């Protein structure tokens, strides 16, 4: 059974691109969310094996969403997708419970590597 992923980003463009990268590597994208609030709700609903999480989003940012999800499920595996220049925020996200991060623009190999490492 392939591993399931929830893709969170406010841009359809990014969701499509991340989704394509993951699907190509054999993962199953079970859901997408475009805000932190939606991410938390979808996480409860879908219980995915992994979440890719954008940081800057309307309606609850990625870091708060990580806190909420970890509160719900301390074992949640969340991969932060950050942009250049967000090192401070990445550190905050890791402290909040995110497991790893990748930096946009993505190298597909780097994304897959990070995902595979997390799902062990």
């Amino acid at each position: 059974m392939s591993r399931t992923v929830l893709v969170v980003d406010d841009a359809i463009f990014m969701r499509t691109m991340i989704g394509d990268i993951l699907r190509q590597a054999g993962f199953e994208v079970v859901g997408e969310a475009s805000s932190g609030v939606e991410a938390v709700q979808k996480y409860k609903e879908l219980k995915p094996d992994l979440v890719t999480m954008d940081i800057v989003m309307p309606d609850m940012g990625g870091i708060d969403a990580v806190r909420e999800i970890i509160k719900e499920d301390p074992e949640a595996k969340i991969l932060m997708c950050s942009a250049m220049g967000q090192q401070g925020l990445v550190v905050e996200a890791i402290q909040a419970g995110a497991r790893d991060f990748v930096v946009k623009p993505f190298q597909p190999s780097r994304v897959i590597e990070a995902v595979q490492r997390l799902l062990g």
Partner: protein
Amino acid sequence: MSQQDKYAQLFAAEAREHLAEMSRALIALEEAPEDRESLDSIFRSVHTIKGMAGAMGYDVATRLAHNIESVLDELRGERRDINPDLIDLLLESTDLLDNAVEATVAGQTPPDPTAVVERLVLWRLADESTDPEAAVSEAAAPVAPKDSPAPQLAAPAETPPRRPASSRVRVDIRRLDALMNLLGELTIVRGRLRALVNEAGSELMQELVEEAGSLMSEMQLQVVESRMVPVWQIFDRFPRLVRDAARSADKEVEIEISGKELELDRSMLDAINDPLVHLLRNAVDHGIESPDAREKAGKPRAGVIELSARRERSRVVIVVHDDGKGIDRQRVAKEARKRGWLPEDVQPSDQELLRIMARPGFSTANKVTNLSGRGVGLNVVEDTIRGVGGSVELRSEEGVGTTFLLELPLTLVIMPALIVEVAGESYALPATFTRESFETDEGNVKQAHGREWVTWRDRRLPLTRLQTLLSNGDGNGAGNRGKPGVLSLVALEFGGRQLAVSVDRFVAEEEIVVKSFDPPRGAVPVFSGATVRPDGRPALVLDIGNLS
């Protein structure tokens, strides 16, 4: 479509939305600098564009977006003043980013952002809390590795993914057009099928053909609806336009927008953009008075332009209202009399004012334009709005203000029309151009200036006989000619010109679904489209502008 094209299209569509949002929010921010929400929204938009442009390997857009983002980041730290000069700089940067996005997506070389980037950096340097060296190096260095192409991805995975959570998709409008055209073709085929079945088919066959017909109508409606987009997609750009126009005219103008969630056909929305830009510019330049003049007249210094959209039955009404000085009726009337367009003793009504000002001869007269202030482009506005099946109405009160009402059909593909018959064939005349249908004796047709004329409501209209025009010159067709010696006529008006056409018979007033139409080679160039009547028979839509 290649994967790369797919990403490029997604990028373009999403970036445009964010750019529109940035413009909107920047204006809101100028009005309320303490408004955290506007600032956050601009930041998020430019941040998203930066991320997407980076992923696409669009360096210029990425660099610009990054530098705009840095400025906004400082503002979010609440360390700096938000003043009109800064908003100007940010708007200009947003425009450049817009240009860069469009150029890159179109495969052209994007504009050089260096000058604007330098100004963004200088703004940051003007504050002591920014580390100058960091600011400079950040501006100069590309934020993404220069040569990183967007990820190259192979074909999608073989197993189809479970349906994603998002319930919206973006569709190229041409696909919907194609779908609409196919439905039109299908309707024609069904018409033929129905004729055959009615002749020889069983009752069950007849029922099935009818059922197929109603399913097709439903499908047509669904396609029409899926072409609808909210008017904010263009309305949100207008505060910016009004602000810039007001600034360059040294006026104080506020714009109030309502009804922007209302939905219109995408092509309709594209068509009305330019007319609205004209009307808003005119309102700022010529409607709203200078702050001093307003004060003298006992009005607040800042003028108000109201832009609203509302639905009225199957029509949409867009209103552009300003509380300025109104149109100088006497002066417009005087100029019209000088040209012989208006009898000496008649005071023009509001609608006649519009007729006069929308006449091409009026708008080209510079002196008049400066006096009345409303001539420029009004004929363009009227022609465009009528071209999409709409109408324009004017209300003006001196000293109080001017209102333009644009009444539009919800969609370009469905419009009201008068169906007439000529030589046994049906033709559709778009109802926005028809004034009245009437009958007159052949004896009332007069010859002058080498053509025929008829009288309608005390006016002489040039007469075009559709029987002659549409039969390629072989004279009378085989159709039902009605009463002998009596002409059935339709008075038409287009772009300020009036004319009459003769037909054999008035058939009905109907809402028609217009289908684009490639006229056969050598055909008379007077058709703008085709439609299928409820009985399945085709009718050509007459292009009124080409009839006279």
